[in-house]
Structure formats: structure tokens, C-alpha cells
């Protein structure tokens, strides 16, 4: 009889792994706690470095899915490790036995209001990267009206001990530069400032994107972290930072401030993790069996990871991670349940 694989999380990682495992002949069940597939991808408009449409990518992933049993609005109620299998009770009461489980719970965006000094949720014209993507997708009901001066704050909730996250969220720099360029495309007359601590343009084409942002769009990159935001009478913002390159305090009035909320471990992922007593690192992401050789394996045989559950990842990285997980799962099932002649 064909083996059951349970995939927890319907984001890019879950979808990609599901379609591969399903095609390699396993019966795959994918559960997603929200009412839509795609996770954060579904609420993003365009993807760096080349501005591909997130919607098209998601459509493609879902299209490849095939006859996978997808359960939306479904969460894990309990999960137990049996001998060589897992018994899972779903929030809809159903019980199912899985020979392998893939944890693809992704990440949560950092709650920008936690950085009180930036006044997210208090000042009208302070928004987050996610808000901006939503605006790109369907507008924002006239909140952003032809801003003359726009600021982007990198590393909001990243590399910041005060909010309990020492690590870099990896994707924000590229996202900020992407969004900055998109804003210049929409508002060519606007002045755009990016406040960064370090620009981490590590990926292919990222540096080109950065160069274009400077050369074509004339975006001003200020090396310094915004320390304080206040609202003026006319709802414009007074932003303070240090220009560390000239080691002078800097002050600028902006019409719109976009906070690059970083990547935090997914709370729901943690919930499942706790049920399974999975260890996690100091940074709150799941600890893998080995940090280099087998990043997709957990300490529990038959339980695997894919995507941002084991640390921030770009979409291509997530997809690759999902593919390797699928491969690991396939290997695992083949070796543990050899076909009987």
C-alpha cells in the first residue's frame, strides 16, 4: 500500500514538496491553517530581484500540485510519534496516520509595533513592507497619496537584541531596494531614502538591482539606523538617524515611512514543534540534525523540515529546500518500508 505523507503548511515549501512527493507516488495530505494556500507569497505582489509576479509563481505551484489532499482552515490538534509513524488529530477532528511528516510552517513577520519608537500603528504614515505589498496589489484605500519623500527602514526587528532577534532576516535588504524602486516607478518625482545598517546584497542580480536603484532611480542610501520618528501637525514624519558615513546626526521630514519587518519563527510552527518536543536554536528556529549536511532532517526519524522554519530563506532557497526535503522523505520511506515482493 502507498505511504502517507503529511505536510504541515501550505506555503511555497509545502506546495513544492507536496507536488514532488505526490508525483513520486506517495499519498500526500497538506494542511494549511489559513483559508488560502501560498502563505506570505499570496499577500506579496512582486518578487526580487527581477520583479516577477508572486501571483504567477503561486499559480504555478498550485497548478503543479495534482491530486494532493489539501485541507484549508485546518490545524494540528495533537501529534504523536509512534513506532515508525505519526498519529495526528486535526482540528476538524479527523485522525490520520502518517509515515512521514514535513514541517513547512514558514515564518511570521516581525510585529513592527514592537519597535515603539517608529510609531507603527500610531502614526498614520508609518507602514510595513507587507502593507506596501498589499498596496501594490490592490491599493490601500487612498492612504498613500503621491508622497513626495519616502523612507525605508531596514532591519526592523532584525539584528536587534532589544526585540530578541540577533540574526539577519536575509530578505529585507533586497525587498527594501525592490520596493524603493517600485515606489520611484509609481512616483517618479518622489525622493526615496533607504536607512540601512549593512546592505546585504548577497544574491545573484542583487547588486545589479542595487546599482539600478542608485543610478536609474537616484535612491539615497543612508548608512544608519532610524532611532526615532515623530509626527508633525500635518501628519508628516520627522525621522532621526545618524549618517554614520559622516558621523553626524541626520534629520529628514518624510511623507511615508516603510518599515522592513523582519522574519521571526512561526508561532504555529512552534506549537507543533512543542507537541513533538523539537529543539530550537537560540534564534527560535528549529534546530536541524546537522547544520550543513542534512538541514532538512530533524532529530525524530520521519520528521522533516522545509522552508523558513529552519531560518530565513529567499523563495528560490525555500523551493530548493522543499525539493531536498522531498528527496530526503523519499529516501527515508524507501529505506524504512522496502517494497515486499
Amino acid at each position, binding site marked *: 500500500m502507498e505511504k502517507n505523507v503529511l505536510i504541515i503548511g501550505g506555503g511555497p515549501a509545502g506546495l513544492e514538496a507536496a507536488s514532488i512527493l505526490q508525483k513520486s507516488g506517495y499519498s500526500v495530505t497538506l494542511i494549511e491553517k489559513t483559508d488560502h494556500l501560498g502563505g506570505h507569497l499570496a499577500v506579496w505582489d512582486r518578487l526580487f530581484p527581477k520583479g516577477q509576479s508572486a501571483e504567477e509563481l503561486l499559480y504555478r505551484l498550485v497548478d503543479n500540485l495534482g491530486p494532493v489532499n489539501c485541507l484549508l482552515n485546518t490545524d494540528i490538534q495533537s501529534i504523536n510519534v509512534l513506532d515508525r509513524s505519526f498519529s495526528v488529530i486535526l482540528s476538524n477532528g479527523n485522525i490520520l496516520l502518517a509515515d512521514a511528516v514535513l514541517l513547512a510552517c514558514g515564518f511570521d513577520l516581525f510585529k513592527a509595533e514592537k519597535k515603539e519608537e517608529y510609531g507603527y500603528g500610531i502614526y498614520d504614515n508609518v507602514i510595513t513592507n507587507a502593507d506596501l505589498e498589499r498596496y501594490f496589489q490592490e491599493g490601500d484605500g487612498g492612504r498613500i497619496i503621491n508622497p513626495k519623500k519616502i523612507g525605508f527602514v531596514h532591519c526592523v526587528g532584525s539584528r536587534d537584541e532589544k526585540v530578541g532577534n540577533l540574526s539577519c532576516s536575509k530578505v529585507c535588504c533586497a525587498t527594501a531596494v525592490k520596493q524603493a524602486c517600485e515606489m520611484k516607478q509609481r512616483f517618479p518625482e518622489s*525622493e526615496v*531614502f533607504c536607512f540601512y545598517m549593512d546592505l546585504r546584497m548577497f544574491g545573484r542580480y542583487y547588486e545589479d538591482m542595487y*546599482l539600478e536603484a*542608485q*543610478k536609474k532611480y*537616484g535612491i*539615497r542610501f543612508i*548608512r544608519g539606523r532610524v532611532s526615532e520618528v515623530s509626527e508633525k501637525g500635518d501628519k508628516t514624519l520627522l525621522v532621526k538617524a545618524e*549618517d554614520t*558615513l*559622516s558621523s*553626524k*546626526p*541626520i*534629520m*529628514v*521630514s518624510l511623507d511615508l515611512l516603510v518599515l522592513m519587518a523582519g522574519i521571526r519563527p512561526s508561532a504555529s510552527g512552534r506549537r507543533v514543534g512543542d507537541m513533538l518536543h523539537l529543539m530550537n536554536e537560540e534564534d527560535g528556529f528549529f534546530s536541524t540534525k546537522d547544520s550543513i549536511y542534512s538541514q532538512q532532517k530533524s532529530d525524530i526519524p520521519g520528521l522533516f523540515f522545509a522552508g523558513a522554519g529552519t531560518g530565513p530563506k529567499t523563495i528560490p532557497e525555500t523551493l530548493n529546500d522543499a525539493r531536498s526535503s522531498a528527496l530526503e522523505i523519499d529516501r527515508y520511506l524507501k529505506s524504512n518500508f522496502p517494497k515486499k515482493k
Partner: protein
Amino acid sequence: MMDFGFTINKSSRIDLDRFDKAGFDKLAKIEPDVRKCIACGSCTASCSAGQFHRTSVRSAILSIQNAKENEAVELLKGCMLCGKCQMTCPRGINIRHLILSILKFYGTK
């Protein structure tokens, strides 16, 4: 008026609202490379004048962006146009022309 023995200290704060965008755009028309600087400092490090004088193209560009055009001119007055910086610039910025353009644009008004 009474002598208190002190007066209000001048603020060292840069007010970006005073940045002259139109002017900078004009400069960028004359030498588009001005936008390409990544502040690596190679120019300052290799500068022939640099060992005698605070010449620095990197800082000059920054000064203009920080609405301190005169400071930029001061930073470049000592330049001898030897072109070493241009050889070391990783972004291939046409530095000598940039310097001449800055001196012409902000220095001869």
C-alpha cells in the same frame, strides 16, 4: 544683556530637508556616475593629495547629498586630478570628471 559665560551651541545635525534635489539632479545630468558611489573609500585611500590634505571624493559626494555643497568644494580644492582614484574605483566612476563638475557646479558660483 547679561553675560552668562556661554551661548547656545550650534547643532551639528544634518537637515536633509535642505538638500537641493534639483541642483543634484543637474549635477547628475553632467556626470551621472555621481549616483554610483558605494562609499567604499578606495578613492580617499589612494589619493595623492590625501596624505597632505583631507581630499576625499567619497566625502564630497556625501556632503552634497547632505546639503553641504561648500564643504564638498573644500574637500576637492586640494585635488591634483592625478586620476589614481579613478583607477581604484570599483564602480568605475568617472571621478576626475565628477570632481571637475562639482568644482564647476558648486565652486564657481
